[in-house]
């Protein structure tokens, strides 16, 4: 990874995407990842984002972005409209994950999913020893204010892919500031998967 001063998850995703690809980012936030993809990969990019203020930030970066929710925003694209569809840190906040993932795999030739690992050891310790819902770096919210609707582990996602016959082309698990290469479901804060159907 030769990217400096970039969030680790963004650097990982950047490495997964081939130059000059077309990328749709679902829940693109302020557009940082898409901006990087234009600069580093000359990608053709499109974002979808629900937050109005984030839209203004995306537009200021010169990005194409749709104001809307991910749950309904995908259905209107043709099959294989993009080389990649990215759901980075947004999948766990989507109401109908199953439907959106199926749609993402239809609209994109490949899909990149990044999510916080609920089975991270610190979460497990908080649950086990303190008896509290975990609050960690990758799951920083209290139970009453979290935007997350789904809590899953790296293992859960792999099982899901197997059941749905989704190919996992590549998986990268990251800890606080490094890649995790063993006991990933225990030591990774975030799992990033490149999948296709």
């Amino acid at each position, binding site marked *: 990874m030769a990217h400096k001063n970039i969030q680790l998850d963004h650097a990982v995703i950047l490495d997964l995407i081939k130059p000059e690809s077309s990328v749709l980012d679902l829940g693109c936030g302020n557009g940082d990842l898409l901006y990087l993809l234009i600069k580093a990969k000359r990608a053709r990019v*499109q974002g979808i984002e629900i937050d*109005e203020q984030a*839209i*203004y930030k*995306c*537009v*200021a970066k*010169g*990005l*194409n*972005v*749709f*104001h*809307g929710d991910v749950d309904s925003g995908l259905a*209107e*694209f*043709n099959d294989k*409209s993009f080389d990649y569809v990215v759901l980075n840190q947004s999948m766990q906040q989507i109401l109908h994950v199953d439907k959106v993932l199926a749609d993402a795999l239809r609209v994109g030739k490949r899909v990149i999913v990044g999510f916080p690992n609920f089975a991270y050891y610190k979460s497990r310790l908080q649950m086990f020893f303190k008896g509290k819902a975990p609050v960690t770096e990758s799951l920083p919210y209290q139970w009453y204010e979290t935007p997350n609707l789904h809590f899953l582990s790296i293992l859960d996602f792999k099982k899901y892919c197997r059941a749905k016959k989704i190919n996992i082309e590549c998986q990268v698990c990251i800890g606080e500031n490094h890649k995790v290469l063993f006991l990933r479901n225990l030591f990774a804060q975030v799992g990033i998967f490149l999948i296709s159907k």
Partner: protein
Amino acid sequence: MNKEKKIIKIESVGLVKTQEFTFDSFKLESGEKFGPVTLAYETYGCLNSERTNAILITHALSGDAHAAGVHQGQDNPGWWDEFIGPGKAIDTEKYFVICSNILGGCKGSTGPTSINPKTAKPYALDFPLITINDIVNAQKRLIDYLGIEKLLAVVGGSMGGQQVLSWLVNYPHNLASAVPIATTIKHSPQQIAFNEVGRQSIMADENWKSGNYYESTAPVKGLAVARMIGHITYMSDKSMAEKFGRVKKEAQEPFKFTADFQVEGYLRYRGDNFVKRFDANSYLYITKAMDNFDASGGWPFQTVLQGTSVKVLVIAFKSDWLYPAYQSKEIVKACKLAGVETTYCEIDSTYGHDAFLLEVEEESHLLKHFLKKVLYAYEVTGEYGA
């Protein structure tokens, strides 16, 4: 020069003058040949030597060519002055801005009030039924006359947005970007219904006389009521509540059914003011053109947009119930399916349809950065839309 004057100079395009362009004739969508046609227009800023920085502003139902700056001896600036000027969203130090009064209008362009050369009298109802595409085709003549092959952008709200869509469909090779604001591919029955009530109000006025009122009293009562209905649809429930509440007017007249509430006074004032500056027949012709418009021409809109390299920015407003956001989303959906580079934003505004004139900060931000991107793409690649 004192400081105050300097500030005004920086913010405004200053003194402007309406100009005229006349061409012999052209073919209307109906097949009828019509002419001569005069278009009143204004320009702000300078056209660069490559002629690549021109932006056309298209006005709404009651608008005119006077979009920015002030006329000699007048205090009121143009209708979109907050958006057009040095350093503003549509920066006249960077862009050459054009705005023309539409065909069928009554602000200097040929319309029902113009003299019919065959009869030496105002056209009145001899004026042909025109369409939004006719309006745009006439604008295209003006753009050609100004020596502009490709517009950097066409920007407009409401009926102006319908014209933007017409440009996008009919002249995709003559523009780099399109900004339809608070508009629709085609009017819904509800929108047609409101326009029809306005038209019926005009035609029910005994002074209308089948449009032949130019030598007598104009149907001002009918036109004023049409405008009152219009104003109701331009505001939202919330913006009306905030603006007027149930506050009663100070001076009460000793009659029944006078304007007791402030909102009644406001609507009457707006109606009465409108008749001083607008022609009733123009109102009939223009609203009919809006109702008849269908940018898709009966096809799925995405098939019409297929293959275009025009960049699109679609803007809608949350409280706009006359041109609701779902109609803008229809445009966005077609752009998605056609693979058109598109940005869409639904601005959280309480102003209703009027928001496109009033939400200066958010709309300016979107316009400014979008136009910058389009111009930059041209400067880097030498080709728009690449």
